[in-house]
């Protein structure tokens, strides 16, 4: 019984809250009533209800005390808090420009931080939607040691998933996911043909990767001919996802063709990094359509594993290193990476996971923090610089008994007050800018979407308020009352140094950001203007499939060539820019043993592909219809020719094939990748047609090609791409970084300059009399401007000296991600420095020039 009674107690938190706000006498009265009420409620309504009612009553009492109550019933805190807010509002009103600069600075700072937070948060969520996430879901990669280091590939042998699950007890489940772009096809239902990207997976797929079904059931959804299609596809083919279930569709691609039964419709998750429209059974595909693929030597699907609970990834990695050797033989090793890390750390260097998109996440987090700190520094500097305006207030307060803690408390409440006002403004700014921000980042962020955003925002705002208030609070509260009342400010040199240091920090950060923007822009334009080695202009590609791939494409190409708008057409295996096939283990004369492992890119295409792509021939000749034996010849690039080191390359043999020509190097993948050795081989089939068209009437020309395509290849949609657009896509991420860093640096610099403007304005105002006397004594306007600005210009110069080396170091790090990059020349840094000086100088000048023109009599008369 007593045990039970003990549990019936009012909530402690509410009681504590009441105790900290009420005066003692009133508290004891309220407590009696509250407790009696509590026990009454506990009996009639239950303990839980009684507790919440108790809390509500307490909050009601506090609200009444705060807004309507008499001061003798509440503690001093409430009265002081009200008083502090009142004093703050009065000082805001009196010094409007300072207040506005502070508010605007903090609001833009908070808004930038919020936007970046939303973006970072979204990046962190990418690829993390699977239930089995945490540490158990891993993906396997194959490491192969080649002549120029270890290459990591996510294409693993077909039997691996099954074999490794049987081999190792740590593996709970293994599945294979085959997403080869070669295999895209056309799905047809009731005369509707749509292109669809397939994903071939083994049956355990849904146990590993989460998938939201809109219709149908997951049980047996991938059995044999059963397929699961995307909601988008279901809507376009059947108008209603429910109607799709059980329907037979035709799905045809290069290596498969046939009726499939729709067993389910899924809704794509925006956090998924895999892109597909239709899920098919991989085992069915391999047994019915591609019987020769299933072996240990073909590079095939991704292998995903679910590990047993408690398995350590590092230990697991040491264990699987040699597994591939045991299962298939050969020197290749395996490495596992947590699937949830793939998006941010997806780049492998020398066989181990290195950076990836995480670099951008880090860069922007750093930018957000810098902007916030810059805004906080503005607040600190302005509040302390204006200490003299409030020194009497502090003196009076101290004289009537305020201790230091009260004053610190006052300045913190003031900075928190202004921070939360800035937050309101910031949320408005974010709402306003979010649509534009989404366009730049290519995401669909929303402020309500991230539930954690609210808590984080409040924490960021609190931190901003506290950080801004800490220095003014400590500095201002330290004044000695007698001196303060006399209006004398002790000029502690320490305080002055700190303020100067903060200005230097602000501008050093701005300099770093300027350097970053300049370097990023230079690098981007370098990439854009650099010669790829082939001509992407007016070059289009479209898929080669159906009859055109299985049969002879020559009649079609001959018709296309007859069009007046077409310069030439050919075909190729692989995409440009993008992957072409590659292989190693070739032999040539005079080869060293390590060179056996050299990886060669192999470009298989038709006649004239050199002319279509605009590749320059250095020596020899390209394939020609006039030479019947050209199927057994190859054309190599300069890089390969240098590697072989033959005296006379033409006519030599490479892996038994005659070398007939050498072409200039070109970047097939873009500038992120190094040029390696490659060779051309003649093939009468391909994956894509490439056509060079004239610059004029392009739409008409493409329509003519489309008409021919439909005539020769009915049942396949004609979809074309401009290669130069595709090439721009490769650098989308860098373009976005460039645009965003431009805007955010602009914001950082504006906030810094606002602060500088206010500081100069303040310090010149205090020297009005001095300026007037100097003018009376014959000083020139220019002399006065110099007098007033020298001090600040010195600080800016120091900031530049500090900022440039840091900027150099950081940008060096960023550029390492590019194989072909600009040199960081001194000119870049001189430019950034001069730019910074110019902006700062203009800011200072705007104020000082005004002061130099003051009316001498006016300013001296006021005494």
């Amino acid at each position: 019984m007593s045990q039970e009674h003990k549990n019936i107690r009012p909530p402690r938190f509410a009681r504590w809250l009441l105790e900290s706000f009420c005066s003692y006498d009133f508290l004891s009265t309220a407590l009696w009533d509250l407790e009696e009420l509590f026990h009454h409620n506990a009996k009639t309504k239950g303990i839980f209800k009684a507790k919440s009612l108790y809390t509500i009553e307490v909050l009601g009492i506090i609200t009444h005390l705060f807004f309507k109550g008499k001061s003798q019933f509440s503690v001093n805190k409430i009265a002081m808090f009200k008083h502090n807010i009142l004093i703050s509002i009065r000082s805001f009103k009196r010094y409007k420009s300072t207040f506005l600069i502070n508010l605007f600075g903090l609001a833009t700072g908070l808004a930038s931080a919020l936007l970046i937070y939303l973006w970072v948060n979204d990046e962190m969520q990418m690829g993390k939607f699977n239930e089995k996430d945490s540490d158990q879901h891993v993906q396997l990669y194959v490491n192969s040691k080649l002549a120029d280091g270890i290459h990591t590939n996510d294409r693993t042998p077909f039997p691996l998933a099954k074999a490794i699950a049987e081999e190792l007890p740590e593996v709970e489940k293994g599945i294979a996911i085959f997403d080869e772009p070669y295999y895209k096809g056309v799905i047809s239902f009731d005369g509707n043909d749509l292109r669809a990207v397939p994903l071939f997976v083994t049956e355990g797929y849904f146990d590993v990767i989460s998938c939201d079904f809109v219709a149908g059931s997951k049980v047996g959804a991938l059995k044999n001919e059963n397929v699961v299609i995307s909601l988008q596809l279901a809507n376009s083919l059947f108008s209603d996802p429910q109607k799709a279930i059980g329907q037979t569709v035709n799905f045809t691609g290069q290596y498969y063709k046939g009726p499939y039964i729709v067993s389910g419709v899924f809704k794509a998750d925006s956090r998924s990094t895999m892109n597909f429209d239709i899920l098919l059974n991989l085992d069915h595909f391999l047994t019915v359509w591609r019987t020769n693929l299933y072996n240990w030597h073909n590079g095939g699907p991704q292998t995903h594993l679910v590990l047993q609970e408690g398995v350590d990834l590092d230990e697991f990695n040491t264990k699987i290193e040699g597994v591939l050797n045991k299962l298939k033989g050969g020197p290749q090793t395996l490495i596992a990476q947590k699937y949830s890390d793939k998006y941010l750390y997806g780049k492998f260097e020398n066989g181990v996971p290195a950076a990836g998109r995480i670099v951008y996440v880090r860069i922007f987090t750093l930018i957000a923090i810098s902007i916030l700190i810059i805004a906080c520094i503005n607040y600190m500097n302005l509040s302390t610089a204006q200490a003299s305006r409030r020194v009497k207030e502090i003196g009076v307060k101290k004289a009537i008994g305020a201790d230091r803690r009260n004053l610190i408390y006052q300045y913190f409440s003031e900075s928190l007050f202004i921070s939360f006002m800035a937050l309101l403004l910031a949320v408005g700014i974010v709402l306003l800018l979010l649509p534009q921000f989404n366009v730049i980042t290519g995401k669909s962020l929303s402020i309500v979407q991230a539930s954690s955003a609210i808590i984080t925002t409040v924490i960021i705002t609190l931190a901003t308020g506290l950080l801004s208030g800490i220095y003014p609070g400590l500095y201002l509260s330290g004044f000695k009352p007698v001196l303060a009342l006399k209006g004398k400010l002790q000029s502690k040199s320490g305080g002055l140094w700190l303020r100067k240091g903060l200005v230097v920090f602000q501008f050093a950060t701005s300099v770093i950001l300027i350097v970053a923007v300049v370097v990023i822009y230079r690098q981007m334009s370098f990439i854009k203007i650099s010669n790829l080695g082939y001509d992407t202009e007016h070059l289009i590609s479209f898929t080669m499939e159906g009859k055109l791939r299985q049969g002879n494409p020559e009649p079609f190409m001959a018709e296309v060539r007859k069009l007046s708008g077409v310069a030439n057409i050919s075909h190729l295996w692989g995409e440009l820019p993008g992957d072409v096939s590659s292989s190693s283990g070739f032999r040539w004369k005079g080869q060293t043993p390590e060179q056996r492992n050299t990886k060669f890119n192999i470009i298989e295409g038709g006649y004239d592909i050199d002319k279509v792509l605009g590749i320059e021939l250095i020596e020899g000749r390209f394939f020609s219809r006039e030479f019947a034996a050209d199927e057994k010849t190859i054309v190599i690039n300069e890089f390969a020719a240098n590697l072989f080191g033959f005296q006379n390359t033409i006519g030599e043999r490479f892996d038994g094939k005659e070398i007939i020509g050498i072409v200039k190097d070109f970047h097939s993948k873009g500038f992120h990748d190094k040029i390696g050795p490659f060779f051309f081989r003649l093939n009468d089939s391909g994956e894509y047609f490439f056509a060079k068209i004239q610059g004029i009437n392009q739409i008409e020309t493409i329509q003519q090609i489309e008409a021919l395509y439909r005539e020769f290849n009915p049942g396949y949609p004609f979809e074309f791409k401009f290669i130069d657009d595709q090439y721009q896509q490769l650098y989308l991420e860098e373009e976005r970084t460039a645009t965003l860093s431009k805007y955010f640096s602009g914001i950082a610099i504006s906030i810094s300059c606002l602060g500088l403007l206010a500081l100069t304005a303040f310090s010149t105002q205090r020297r009005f009399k001095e300026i007037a006397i100097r003018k009376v004594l014959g000083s020139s306007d220019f002399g006065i401007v110099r007098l007033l600005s020298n001090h600040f210009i010195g600080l800016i110069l120091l900031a530049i000296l500090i900022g440039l080396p840091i900027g150099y170091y950081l940008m060096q790090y960023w550029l390492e991600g590019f194989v072909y990059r600009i040199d960081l020349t001194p000119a870049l840094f001189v430019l950034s420095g001069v730019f910074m000086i110019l902006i700062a100088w203009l800011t200072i000048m705007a104020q000082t020039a005004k002061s130099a023109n003051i009316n001498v009599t006016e300013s001296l008369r006021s005494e």
Partner: protein
Amino acid sequence: MKKVTLGAFEELVLLTAGVLQDNAYGVTIKLELERQLNKKISLGALYSALQRLEEKGWVNSRIGGITEKQGGRRKQYYDITKEGMMALDEVRAMRNSLFDRLPQTAINLLK
């Protein structure tokens, strides 16, 4: 001097305190009012009304209960004063006189 007025909620609190006689304190007043008005009344609102009434001299507070203070708690009773009764009476008289002046047609609406 500003005329001291009795607000509508204050009037109800004062009346209830009078009705409850010796047993008028926070909880009893609250529960009684809630029963009469059929709506929730927060203690905070009640305390501010009682404080105002006390300042105007219409209620007196006294400490009561078993012991004066018990574990930091004490029971505070409110007794209506003579002035309080007079204020109530005044309000009532004023209301009655207004009501008496209502035309018969308006009173008929009640029926």
